[in-house]
């Protein structure tokens, strides 16, 4: 059977993609950001996941105002990196895992979550930047990826409680797939940042740290955080952190923190990155 073995969270700041693609990762500004991913690169090389179920959000790339799915699962065999207005990132094509993705779609919809099934979409920095941070610049990505897009752009976004429960449903779905696969679930976005309005530039280190402190052992408390608290405390765009709760829900009841990295600033954002192991 397939197993969810671990979870990874990470920010997905677009400028990080640009910096990797142009080879400027060792400047004094960027070095501390990238050094914080060295542990995870080595850990992934030994873990060798078969599939990554990658929870991210699209930033007006594949979806615009014509269509706004709250939860969308990518079931295609492959996906291309999106052209976000300055040409697509020079990264490998993303190979999907269609058999598992369709299985998850059916199972999760039967568990009362209305997923939108997508067979054609380009993937923007929300998905490709975490891959680059974790795998560097390979010829091909070392595993299959199931893109799972969450609307956090047009309010209201799904609340934390629903995201946490959705993660649990995804775990049930993956665990009932009849193939021996090592699956990781990644949750991207955050941490505190606000990129609009007079309050742009907001960073809340204490709040971010408390969020990280509770992710492994008290996710049910985090799931109760209301939208308005994310906006007020973590900035208008800090609300992306609900995606971390999907990852956490997918790890099952018990999880252990293996690693964390936190750094301010990268562009407008507090970089947060964690590795958790599923312990059930």
């Amino acid at each position, binding site marked *: 059977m397939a197993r969810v073995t671990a979870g990874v969270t990470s920010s997905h700041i677009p400028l990080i993609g640009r910096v990797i693609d142009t080879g400027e990762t060792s400047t004094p500004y960027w070095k501390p950001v990238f050094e914080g991913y060295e542990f995870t690169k080595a850990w992934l090389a030994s873990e060798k996941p078969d599939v990554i179920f990658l929870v991210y959000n699209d930033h*007006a790339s594949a979806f615009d105002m014509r269509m706004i799915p709250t939860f969308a699962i990518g079931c295609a065999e492959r996906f291309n990196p999106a052209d976000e207005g300055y040409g697509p990132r020079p990264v490998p094509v993303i190979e999907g895992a269609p058999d598992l993705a369709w299985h998850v779609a059916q199972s999760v919809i039967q568990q009362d979550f209305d997923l939108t099934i997508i067979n054609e979409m380009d993937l923007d920095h929300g998905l490709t930047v975490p891959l680059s941070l974790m795998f560097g610049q390979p010829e091909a990505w070392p595993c299959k990826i199931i893109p799972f897009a969450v609307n956090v752009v047009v309010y209201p976004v799904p609340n934390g409680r629903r995201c946490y429960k959705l993660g649990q449903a995804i775990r049930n779905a993956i665990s009932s797939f009849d193939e021996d696969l090592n699956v990781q679930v990644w949750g991207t976005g955050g941490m505190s940042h*606000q990129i609009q309005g007079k*309050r742009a*530039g907001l960073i*809340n280190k204490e709040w971010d740290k408390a969020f990280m402190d509770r992710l492994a052992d008290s996710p049910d408390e985090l799931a109760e955080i209301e939208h308005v608290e994310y906006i007020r405390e973590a900035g208008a765009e800090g609300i992306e952190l609900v995606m971390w709760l999907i990852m956490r829900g997918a790890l099952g009841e018990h999880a252990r923190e293996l690693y964390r990295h936190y750094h301010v600033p990268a*562009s*407008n954002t507090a970089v947060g990155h964690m590795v958790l192991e599923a312990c059930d």
Partner: protein
Amino acid sequence: MALDKPYADVPGTTVFDADMARKGYHLNQFCMSLMKAANRDRFHADERAYVDEWPMNEDQKQAVLDRDYLRMIELGGNIYFLSKIFASDGKTFVHAAAQMTGMPEDEYKQMMLDGGRSPDGNRYIGEK
């Protein structure tokens, strides 16, 4: 019954909710058109003529021509959509964010290097 907006008292923040999405629909779809290189070229060749092709209101068009991002946000623009405009100008999120705060870009960058804008005093409108 009006929608509950518990975020209305967060200072300096426009939540892109249903009302804003309704208001900004054409502005945001205009932004999306700039994802295509041919449209970017036409826009930059004659900005006025290009915005006139879109059913935006005059305030929205003027805000685009002025690159007044705070005003575009007030008029229903969403920052991720607006990013298509500044990306086509070769500008970054930091540039747009700094402009919206009213700070010079280098001052804004320094604030970020110093740990960002503190939430203290910035949680509620009128808070000291």
